[in-house]
Every structure is written in C-alpha cells, then in structure tokens.
C-alpha cells in the first residue's frame, strides 16, 4: 500500500477570524499622534504687587473680534508678525547683548532677557487666528534660537533638542543639555498671555 496523503486542513475560517479581529481593531482604535504648542499659564497672583516694566520692553500684540492683528498699535498682516517679533527680540538697545544683530533702536527692547511679548485677545477672536498668532510668535523665538545654536555649535536648536530626546544618540547628553540651556538662556521665551 502506498502511503496515504493526509487531507489538507481547511484554512478558510482562519481568514474570517483574522478579518473580524482586524475590523474590530480598526473601528475601536485610533492612531494617536497628538502634537501642539506647549504653554505655561501664569499662576494665580496672591499679591497685587505690580512689576514695573518699561513700555519699550513690551511688544504688544492685540487680536480684536474681527481677527485683525494690532502690533504695537499698528495694523499688521499675520505674515509680517514673525519678522517684527524677531526684530524686537534681537534689538539689543542697551548694547549689553553682544550676540544680537538688531538695529539697537533705543525705543525698542534693551536685550532678549528683558524683552516680553504680550498677547491679548477679545472674546470674539477665533481660536484658529489665535493659534496662528501663537505659532508665529513661537516661531520667532525658535528661529533666533536656531541661529544662535548654529553660530555657537554648528547645529540648529531643533536638531540639538531632537538629539537630546533620541535614546540612540551616541554623544554626551550632559554637555548637550548644558548647551541647550545656554541657548534658552540667551533667548528666554517670555510670552505673556494677558487675561
């Protein structure tokens, strides 16, 4: 007698079961890739002590109910906001900032440490416009930090932060952290959301 061939296992049901599981996971799950603009809210002030800040060190950005942008009391388009903010932050009016490349206008900010951007909005402002303005102001800080990191360390600030968060990066993390903190100290992000 020749050896009898064993019957083939019916795999038709296995595909059905796998399809059911697949569709279950497709319907009940979502690919979560949340990202956004991080912000720190100011704490509730117990004291009413007012900090005296010279007006020239404050870059006022106001959004009205029609989503119009008022920068230092002048109407401005959104696409010009980033450059205006960079010029304000990089002004170096009191000449203590040796890395600033601005005009050193005495009517504008003294140095990046004293420069503050104040963002106000009305209740009717749309959220989309508010986020766009926040985005442009953060971009101004990020571009200045990138330029500073490029001149100091030959890499962009974004690249340095990505390396720091990369677990496979082979370099010295402590030294990199010091470098990142130095860049943040040169251009501190002082963005005030006024209520």
């Amino acid at each position: 007698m020749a050896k009898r061939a064993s019957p083939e296992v019916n795999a038709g049901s296995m595909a059905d079961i796998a399809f059911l599981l697949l569709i279950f996971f497709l319907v009940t799950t979502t690919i979560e890739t949340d990202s956004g603009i991080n912000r720190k809210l100011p704490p509730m002030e117990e004291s009413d002590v007012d900090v005296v800040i010279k007006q020239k060190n404050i870059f006022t950005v106001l959004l009205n109910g029609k989503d119009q942008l008022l920068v230092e009391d002048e109407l401005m388009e959104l696409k010009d906001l980033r450059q205006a903010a960079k010029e304000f932050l990089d002004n170096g009016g009191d000449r203590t900032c040796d890395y600033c490349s601005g005009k050193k206008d005495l009517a504008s900010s003294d140095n990046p440490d004293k420069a503050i951007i104040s963002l106000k909005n009305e209740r009717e402002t749309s959220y989309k416009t508010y986020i766009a303005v926040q985005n442009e102001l953060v971009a101004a800080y990020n571009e200045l930090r990138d330029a500073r990191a490029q001149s100091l360390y030959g890499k962009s600030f974004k690249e340095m932060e990505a390396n720091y968060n990369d677990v496979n990066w082979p370099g010295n993390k402590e030294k990199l952290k010091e470098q990142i903190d130095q860049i943040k100290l040169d251009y501190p992000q002082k963005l005030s959301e006024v209520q």
Partner: protein
Amino acid sequence: MSKFKKKKDGGVPAVNTAALPDIVFMLLFFFMVATVMRQNTLMIENNLPFADQVEKLDKKDLVMYIYAGKPSTNYKQYGTEAKIQLNDKFADVKEIAAFIAAERASKREELIPFLTTALKVDKGANMGLISDIKQELRKVNALKINYTTKKGSVFGRD
C-alpha cells in the same frame, strides 16, 4: 488501448487561499501595535487648527484632555454655541476644577507634577470660552497646557 483519457475530469482547481490569513494577520498585528483604544466619543466638532511650531505630546497617561467646539450634527439639540466636553459628556466651565481633581486622583502620585492639560478646540470656536477654561485651570494650578493642533502651515488653509 484506453491508456490516454479522452476527457478531463473535474473543472478548474480551487484557488489557493493559504496566503490570505497570513496577510490579514499581518494587518491585524500592525493595527494592534500602532493604535490605541479610543478614549472618548466626540460629541462636538473638533477640526483642529494648523500650526508648524509643534511639539509632540507626552505619554498618554500624562495628558488630560479638554475638548471644546460646537455640538456636532447628532447633538444639534444642545444648541449652536461652542461647548466643553470632559470625558464623554458635556460639561460647564465650573466643572473643570472637579474634572482636574478627579484626573489627578486617578493618577499615581509621583506623576501629578508632570501632568499636561491638552486643549483640543475646534478652530471655529471663540476665544471667550478658551479664556474661561484657562482661568479655571489657573485656579486649580494646572498650569502646563498644550494647544493641540494639526501639523501644517498656518497660512492659506481653511
């Protein structure tokens, strides 16, 4: 004499489907690994605005979500004004403090200083509601917030 058959027996052989379960299982495993269970069923419109200076949000267990937007088509009876959704039900502004307290109680104690509140707000909402939300967060000292957005240019898109 009749060594050669005159007719073919049977029809076309069955299509071999042995590879089909393999492919479907590969898809299944990908979706099991790459996705997370939906946290909340949204009752509001939630078209997030665009921004390009974004940072990735931390791990899921360090984030508390506050949704805001006008009610979606299935919930039109709740009006046309933007509303806040906490977990899976509509909420008032004054309920945010209780929501934050409940979320903190549900986390491990050492994680509480690192919690971030993610504001997932529809781009059409007004800033008045968001200002109220931020004021409530300040009262309960939940100061780390994230304006959750889609990644992309802020110009020229609607």
